[in-house]
């Protein structure tokens, strides 16, 4: 995570970050580790079934991702279910700044908090990829309830696969994770699966904000 990446996330053309943003961002990036408590993990399920081209049955639970997501994992031999969090501290810090009357800092901390959990997930995904590669397997892109038309309510089923309070992450009745900067989802594993540059080609959401969003990192 660097200044150029944060600049692009904020929407500014390259090299056009106005004062005092560069100093504010640097200061936040330096302090962020003190407010972060990254925890995460994954479960690998060897047995699952895809039904009706879009339902995934695992351990007696039935998930309803979109057809495009189910298509991506249909050739998988295993499914990894993951959960990861940046911890509560980064959100608390953001809210403190907002309450203290510094909305710019609060917003940037919140943004960096999101990037922290995504970056941590990149590392966890690379770890999984490395372990699977040594066993002769590839992995797919990762997919999360709430993205690409996958009902966020399927989080309830995903959480049922993990021990309660796994890595300190809980789920509300309305399927929101706490801490807020948390991500959960699935990754397909198999000899005949692959990651795609953009899963967007297969998605029905033509007007999605994130459609074909360019990143220099793994596709979230």
């Amino acid at each position, binding site marked *: 995570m660097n200044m150029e990446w944060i600049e692009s996330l904020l929407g500014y053309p390259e090299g056009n970050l106005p004062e005092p943003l560069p100093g504010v961002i640097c200061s936040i990036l330096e302090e962020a580790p003190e407010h972060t408590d990254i925890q995460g993990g994954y479960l690998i399920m060897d047995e699952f079934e895809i039904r009706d081209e879009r339902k995934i049955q695992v351990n007696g639970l039935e998930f309803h991702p979109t057809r495009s997501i189910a298509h991506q994992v249909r050739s998988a031999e295993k499914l990894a279910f993951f959960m990861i969090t940046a911890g509560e501290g980064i959100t608390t810090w953001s809210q403190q700044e907002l309450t203290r009357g510094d909305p710019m800092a609060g917003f940037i901390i919140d943004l960096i908090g999101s990037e922290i959990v995504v970056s941590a997930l990149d590392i966890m995904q690379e770890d999984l990829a490395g372990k699977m590669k040594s066993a002769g397997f590839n992995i797919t892109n990762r997919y999360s309830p709430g993205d690409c038309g996958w009902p*966020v309510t399927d989080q309830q089923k995903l959480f049922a696969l993990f021990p309660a309070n796994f890595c300190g992450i809980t789920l509300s009745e309305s399927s*929101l994770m706490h801490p807020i900067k948390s991500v959960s989802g699935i990754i397909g594993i198999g000899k005949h699966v692959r990651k795609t540059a953009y899963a967007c080609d297969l998605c029905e959401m033509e007007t999605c904000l994130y459609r074909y969003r360019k990143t220099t990192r793994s596709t979230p």
Partner: protein
Amino acid sequence: MELLEQLSHCIEFGKINQASPYPPDMKGQDGADELAKMALDQGIGANDILQKGLVPGMEKVGVKFRENKVFVPQVLMSAKAMNAAMEHLKPFFQSGEVTRKGKFVIGTVAGDLHDIGKNLVSMMIEGSGWEIIDLGVDVSTEKLMETIKANPDCVVGLSALLTTTMNNMADTVRKIKAELPNQVILVGGAPLTDDFRKEIGADFYSPDPQGAVEYLNSLVA
């Protein structure tokens, strides 16, 4: 520059107070905080300060944001400048000397926690002279209905950023309209379109906050 024009300039460029180093080319100058107080001390009416000082400044910010000439951090600084000035006008709102254009009840729908867009819309609508009742994120239909009934004649704004919580938005709009068919509802959020707005029976959709401001103001024009 005339005082209210200066105040508007401070709002437009996010100059909160004299101590604030932002923007760099206004360092050391009085900000919205000082100028609002100065205007009141000079006998300028609170309503004029709002309508001729604050609102024009926020309107310029809204247009520039729509045109990608400024981005979220700058809008936040403008909103903070506006809040600093509004602190001086609070007694006049409470006494009724300054009246708001109306009430705007806003929230992110159930199952969704995204709030940056909602907060930007709230700031700009408040800067345009409306009273904001912000219910936060993950707002149930029941909570919305309770707030609408407690604030008759309010306008409602709903936000969703997940494609899947758009279904919750549709359900919420349907339930509100079933009980209160004349309730005006605006919707917004990155995955939304005007076609979706029509499909779910909401009254207005805007891809940017300034559009919401202009629509609300057209209701009271």
